[in-house]
């Protein structure tokens, strides 16, 4: 594990870095492809909606499953002659449960079918669990879910805007979020997992998770880009990329930690209960958290950088940076910052445009130069170069 710690340290110092932002075109392409596939899957195959969305009755009973179970229960249910029964769908769960789904039935028929199933299973009728869903219920749930989604997106947009004082951060985070939800739903459509209300809960919860991750990364980006226009050493993309590299170990850790309990719900839920809300919820979460981790590393920061670099101030910065590098770096986007850039001193001035250029000294660390930036929380610098707290000699190198 210390190896990972080592990598973490080197990522932190920028010694090792993957150019997440520089290669954004690749990742945008990958994501676009995934989204397109998801949408095609969604519209071509549709979602396998559970009984909760279609309306119907589901029975579940404990019984020793045999080869004939399905046929026996089908016959038993059909023998009740319940009105408008349709074709009952009988599935066995593991070796000791059977599940029977029918169309919506009359209250009396529900009791009849339950008794028939109990008799067949050799249990008391009250040991048969049933779940009966009206036809319009699913619409209501879906309606609520969509409403929750919209309200949440609007609120989150505002909250992120307020927190980062930057609508572009909101936009990037929300696009990444929609991306996560689309892919998760796409996976459901393509693989054909059942969509139940529990799945919907899962998907809605992903929203929180995915954003949580994104906010942490953006926080680092903000820290690294504070006063960036005050120096001519890094473009916004460089700084953002460093931030992603610095937080990537954390992203991996938090994702693993989030997935561990969710995975245990998934495994235990499936193994013990076979099917049901626990499995549906955790499956959606599992997929969503994984996709969310991917997007908060590869997509959200790259989007943010793309948006920010449209600003004239940032473009001017880019030109200055490239000029300083002597045109050596012609790559359109931010390359990992070359070590040579570290020679530059903390310069003041600059055409400060965006991003509260309050602390020019708080530039991103890079190369072999871990800058011990004292990070005062208040922004009292007002654009002037400020003395750093530690003498340079103490900072190493």
């Amino acid at each position: 594990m210390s190896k990972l710690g080592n990598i973490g340290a080197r990522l932190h110092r920028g010694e090792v870095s993957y150019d997440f932002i520089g290669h954004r075109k690749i990742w945008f392409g990958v994501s676009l492809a995934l989204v397109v596939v998801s949408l095609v899957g969604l519209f071509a195959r549709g979602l396998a909606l559970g009984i909760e969305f279609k309306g119907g009755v589901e029975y579940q009973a404990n019984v020793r499953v045999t080869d004939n179970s399905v046929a026996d229960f089908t016959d038993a249910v059909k023998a009740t002659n319940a009105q408008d029964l349709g074709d009952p769908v009988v599935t066995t769960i593991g070796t000791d449960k059977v599940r029977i789904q029918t169309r919506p039935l009359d209250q009396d028929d529900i009791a009849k079918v339950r008794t028939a199933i109990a008799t067949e299973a050799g249990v008391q009728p009250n040991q048969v669990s049933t779940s009966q869903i009206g036809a319009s219920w699913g619409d209501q749930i879906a309606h609520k879910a969509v409403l929750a989604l919209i309200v949440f997106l609007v609120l989150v947009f505002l909250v992120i805007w307020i927190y980062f004082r930057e609508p572009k951060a909101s936009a990037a985070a929300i696009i990444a979020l929609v991306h996560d939800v689309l892919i998760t739903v796409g996976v459901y459509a393509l693989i054909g997992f059942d969509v139940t209300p529990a799945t919907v809960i899962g998907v809605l919860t992903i929203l929180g998770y995915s954003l949580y991750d994104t906010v942490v990364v953006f926080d680092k980006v903000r820290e690294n880009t504070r006063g960036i226009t005050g120096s001519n050493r890094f473009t916004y993309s460089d700084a953002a990329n460093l931030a992603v590299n610095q937080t990537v170990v954390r992203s991996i850790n938090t994702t693993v930690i989030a997935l561990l309990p969710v995975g245990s719900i998934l495994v235990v839920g499936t193994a013990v209960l076979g099917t049901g809300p626990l499995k549906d919820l955790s499956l959606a979460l599992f997929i969503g958290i994984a996709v969310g981790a991917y997007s908060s590393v590869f997509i959200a920061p790259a989007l943010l950088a793309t948006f920010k670099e449209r600003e004239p101030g940032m473009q001017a910065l880019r030109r200055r940076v490239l000029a300083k590098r002597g045109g050596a770096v012609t790559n359109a986007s931010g390359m990992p910052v070359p070590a040579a850039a570290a020679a530059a001193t903390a310069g003041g001035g600059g055409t400060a445009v965006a991003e509260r250029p309050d602390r020019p000294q708080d530039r991103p660390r890079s190369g072999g130069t871990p800058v011990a930036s004292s990070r005062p929380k208040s922004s009292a610098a007002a654009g002037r170069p400020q003395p750093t707290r530690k003498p340079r000699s103490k900072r190493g190198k």
Partner: protein
Amino acid sequence: MATTTTTRPGRLLIVLAVILVLLFGIMGLTKSWGPKLGLDLRGGTTITLTAKSLAGGGSVTAEQLAEAKNIISQRVNGAGVGEAEITTAGSNHINVAVPGASQDSLIKQVGQTALLYFRVVYDAQAGTPVPTTTPSAQPTTTPKPSATPKPSTTIKPSATPSATPKGRAWSSALGKDATPTPTPSAQPSTPAATPSTPAANNGDPLAWTPDAASQEAFAKYTCDQPAPVDDPDKPLISCSRDKATKYLLGPAIIKGTDLSGASAGIPQGGFQWQVNLNFNNEGGDKFLKATTAIAQRGEGQNLFAIVLDGETISTPSVSGPIPGGQAQITGTFTEADARDLANVLKFGALPVSFDISSVETISPQLGGDQLSAGIMAGLIGLALVILFSFLYYRGLGIVVVASLAVAALLTYASVVLLGKAIGFTLTLAGIAGLIVAIGITADSFVIYFERLRDEVREGRSLRSSVETGWARAKHTIIAADSISLLAAVVLYILAVGGVKGFAFTLGLTTLIDLLVVFIFTKPLVTLLARTDFFGHGHKLSGLDPEHLGVERLPGQAGPARPATKKSRPSTRKPVGGEV
């Protein structure tokens, strides 16, 4: 930055201890040690009804929903189901939770449309089978006490409205007692003979008279039988709410929709509570016609029944035609009685139908399975997270374990106490929320620890890193937790059913996470950083130089210098020294 006050961490830990002692003290005092489990964990039936207004395009007002809830409560209580919980949810949902076995008849009953009808009373008898002889036999000897519905009133059959001190009567040109004590027996067998209604008019409900079959059915009927279906076009046998009296009623004359309003009040100059009725135009006409016909029937026969859900709520008498679409029911009303009747009338005037949106019947066995699966998943998840923390953060894993333990205690106490205080029930979805929250809680530590290590990598001493790292990390933690909380709140407000439980526990644990990180994790790390083991970066502490990828811990003897070249293996042991 390294100027940590010596008292602060200890003080915060004491605050936490006080909170914990308080919470568990309250639990001890109220003797509530276990959380309130949802029906999906202990077996039972949960019915979700969607109320729809028949009159006004589908949506119901909050007032109507509250009324609808009352009606459902009455139905459920009437069915003799104990321990049922009826709650409203959202703008148009009513949840009925009934522990125990499946309740087919209840489900059926609960889903009925609530409709109010006015019917003519043809006969009234004790609801219990005791006095039932041939109904025609005793025109005058009907047992009086049993025949009186709940307000046992002695009625004076005087015609003056003001003179009816006790019974309930239609007033406004009439006054009559509601309680049919002397009357109901009147002419069970003779209604056919009463020429009060022209038999020719077949479509007119007022024209109906009991035939032999309905007489017989009425005689056999007892109030402990399930209520018959209330079909407005057919005669009905109905019982009073207290099941003491049964009534033979004609087809509905007036429907609840004919009413435009009802209220309870004391008329000016009066001192008795009364119920005021307003009819719409059509209803007013019908009412005039009906009262005209009924008033002709003579003393004891001139009774109306107000029937809701097949149950006779009130049987006022009419002594004369009432024009104008307005009427009062007077009698011995207590305020509660009057309001209750007014509500019934109002509710009937705005009929609400119920869609059975979902019924979930969980057998106790499956409930038990779900509970144990949830607990097992939680424990396994917890164990995995702890294992991972120890592997990755080594000694700091202790902090993770301790913090998770504190969070677990706080969560458990909150769930138990909230169950006591606001009836919060722990459902399967709620348990899932708690498990998912393990990840969120542990996440806060990851943010802090990674920050802390970053600070050390940047060349700070460990003790100052504990502070500076925290200063940065806490903003991130607050921001990230706010987003989680926001998601939980939105889900909670907009969601129905199981989602609510999930959102609630998720939100609750996010708050607890914030609390724990601030008043436990951080102070604990501060204290630990003062120990030799952590403060000097012991190999197993998770803060050793190798683990952090630096050559040696800054702030210790020797030049504090982060490893800068990858070629140099960071194997040097930390050298002891003052921090």
